[in-house]
């Protein structure tokens, strides 16, 4: 096959896989790992009172303590400037009334009170957002894992499948949303034509919903678009994650007579759990922040049925000149997402298995 880069690297990989593989079977996926060497061997058994050695040791310790910051420095500089600062600024903004055109006016916590208790749309919008999130995230995670597994079997035509399932991700959302408008058309759309034909096939006379005209069905339509567009994305993350699962584990399991389900349950699932952790957290964050699908396909309608929190934030910020309120909404959203993420992080010890657990 292909050229594999530096020879030594390839060897290392093979070696560790084997080692890990054997170990993995004997102990099961566990955190039993040789504790990390705390210093280079050259430094571990020193002759005492050697000044050169002392200097090196000090240098070494200094390095151990601070090198993390050096690795972070390039990223964190930009991060502070272009991400952290704007985020903090938005926190400050959430306590002002600001129409973007005239100087902001301080209103303090009243902003949040108003939002929570007198804003007529807030509850509706929050509900829509939860509905969307819990309607899509589980499906998204399960579908993408299933797809990644299916495409990791070495089936004939795997490459073609991989391309097909990823194509929606590559497509511009604007074009896709416009096409879906047409697909969901109650009278002429291909989806309903297809559903009617399917009904006829079974002798049923079904009348499918007029998706985007209905306050009940427009949100499911947005969810379908979102899943269509994004399943390929998480699938690829899973595909990359699956590559880190050592093949030897499966071979050993086969020797032990484990079936497909057992292999999935006891090897694949634990071994991709760091990926799952990542996928779940990111999918939640993205779902809570869903915006463009509704913005392009339904304009939040009909009757606010598909207006999500971030769309509402956008409307407040840029259409209705209420930037402060938008920022306050953003921080409420932050609180919600943070709670969910925090919960995930706390729970991860129960189900996420890291090869390289520090501590």
């Amino acid at each position: 096959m292909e050229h594999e880069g530096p020879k030594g690297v390839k060897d290392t990989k093979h070696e560790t896989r084997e080692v890990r593989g054997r170990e993995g079977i004997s102990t099961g996926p566990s955190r039993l790992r040789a504790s990390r060497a705390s210093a280079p061997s050259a430094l571990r058994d020193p002759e005492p009172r050697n000044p050169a050695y002392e200097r090196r040791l000090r240098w070494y310790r200094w390095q151990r303590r601070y090198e993390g910051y050096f690795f972070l420095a390039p990223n964190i500089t930009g991060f502070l400037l272009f991400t952290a600062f704007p985020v903090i600024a938005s926190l400050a903004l959430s306590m002002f009334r600001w129409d973007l055109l005239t100087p902001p006016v301080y209103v303090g916590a009243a902003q949040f009170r108003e939002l929570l208790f007198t804003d007529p749309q807030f509850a509706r919008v929050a509900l829509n957002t939860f509905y969307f999130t819990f309607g899509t995230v589980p499906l998204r995670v399960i579908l993408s894992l299933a797809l990644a597994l299916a495409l990791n079997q070495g089936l004939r035509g795997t490459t073609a499948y991989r391309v097909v399932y990823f194509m929606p991700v590559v497509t511009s959302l604007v074009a896709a949303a416009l096409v879906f408008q047409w697909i969901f058309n109650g009278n002429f759309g291909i989806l309903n034509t297809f559903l009617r034909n399917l009904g006829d096939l079974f002798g049923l006379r079904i009348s499918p919903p007029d998706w985007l005209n209905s306050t009940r069905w427009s949100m499911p339509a947005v969810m379908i678009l979102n899943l269509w567009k994004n399943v390929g994305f998480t699938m690829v993350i899973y595909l990359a994650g699956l590559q880190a699962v050592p093949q030897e584990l499966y071979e050993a399991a086969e020797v032990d007579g484990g079936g497909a389900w057992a292999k999935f349950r006891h090897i694949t699932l634990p071994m991709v759990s760091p990926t799952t952790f990542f996928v779940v957290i990111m999918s939640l964050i993205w779902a809570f922040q869903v915006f463009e699908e509704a913005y392009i396909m339904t304009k939040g309608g009909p009757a606010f049925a598909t207006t999500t929190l971030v769309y509402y934030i956008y409307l407040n910020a840029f259409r209705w000149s209420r930037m402060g309120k938008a920022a306050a909404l953003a921080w409420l959203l932050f609180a919600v997402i943070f709670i969910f993420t925090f919960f995930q992080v706390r729970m991860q010890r129960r189900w996420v298995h890291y090869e390289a657990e520090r501590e």
Partner: protein
Amino acid sequence: MSRRYLYLLSALVIMAVIASCAPVPTAPAPEAPAAAPASAEQPAAEGAPVTLTWGFWGSPEEKASHERVAEEYMKTHPNVKFEYFFAPWDEYFTTLKTRWAGDPASIPDVLFLWPTPSYAATGVLENLQPYIEKSGYDLSDYWPYLLDSARYEGSVYGLPRDIEAHALYYNKKLFDEAGLAYPTDDWTWDDLVAAAEKLTKRDGDRVTQYALGMEGGKWALWVGQAGGIMLDDLTNPSKCTLDTPEAMKGLQFFYDLMDKGYAMRSATLGQQGGDAAVFETGQVAMIIQNSSRVPVFNANSNLDYDVAAVPVMAGGKRYDFNGGAAWVISARSDNKEAAWEFLSWLQSKGGGESMYTRNGEIFPALRSVANSDDFLASPKPANRKAFLLAAEAAQPGGFAYFPEWDELSGSIIGPQLDRLWAGEATPAEVVPELCKAVNQFLVNNGYPK
């Protein structure tokens, strides 16, 4: 690396090369060199050199049209140069507001804006009243009431470019097929419904051809014809008046048109590419829309159409709601005098207004332009005077003129009425709730002031 990917890569490179060699866009390339020497030859132009930044939204074609207008102006004002600030419609305001918030000096001198009073209230716009008085610019040429949409506290802050004059467009072929006489300017609601019954085709419970395509947002047309209006006062409202019998009658009429399957539902209309698309493809026999569709339809040689005045309620008055984006000057502009000079040319017969009108892009805000060959000379649609009837009758009522209007309309009125256009509730169910919410909104925002 297998050969296939090399092919792919080279295909990419070739595409990039082709793309960069592609003919450079329309307007500037051929005309710019011609304009430059002309200005150089002008001996000692009267004014000092000025660069005006001009902001507008639109499609690439609309942008080209604005640029042609600017070039025309530069012929008589060689000291003026233009820079353009351009964004697509949806993001124009987002971009602009970000600029106002973060970099107000970069706001263009002359801007296309909507709605003017909301911006004027914040002080970012130049009050045009003194300029108008000093230069004797003629405001009486505007259609009656139109300037209300650009006034704030009694002063004019913007000059509207066009007016929402609606007409009934009809597809002659579909009328012929149904054996119906063409609509006339004195059609009533009953005539419309009678024709609609014959023009609507069904397949089981599905409608395959609608009689009418009309955006839900244009409900104020029917409400106004029935003698209703949404708020008791459009600049300083104290209560919602959509629950009056008159207003309810208008809403009910529109609701029934959709409920009976005569008119395509709002969202469906959007999904099908908007009223122009459904009209061109014969999915609807009529649409009610402003004159912006004329150039599109005229370019379609397969489409045989004409326009008539919008049907009125029997015993009611002709009514249309007015409105239209306006040209404004930024209060931060360094070239206000030059900007005003440009603006007064832009909004004049023989100036920009005539050019836009001849293009068929707009129905002019100026009566003299609408009644001149600029508008009337074009042979298609034959009955284009129908638009004049609408403009004569145009009054406020489609939009209100206080700063929170956009929010009220976008967060309460529009979404609530959506339920009517989606057929999920009747006016009797929706309106009381709607009015309650509107009144609460007005109280929360301190109205009436």
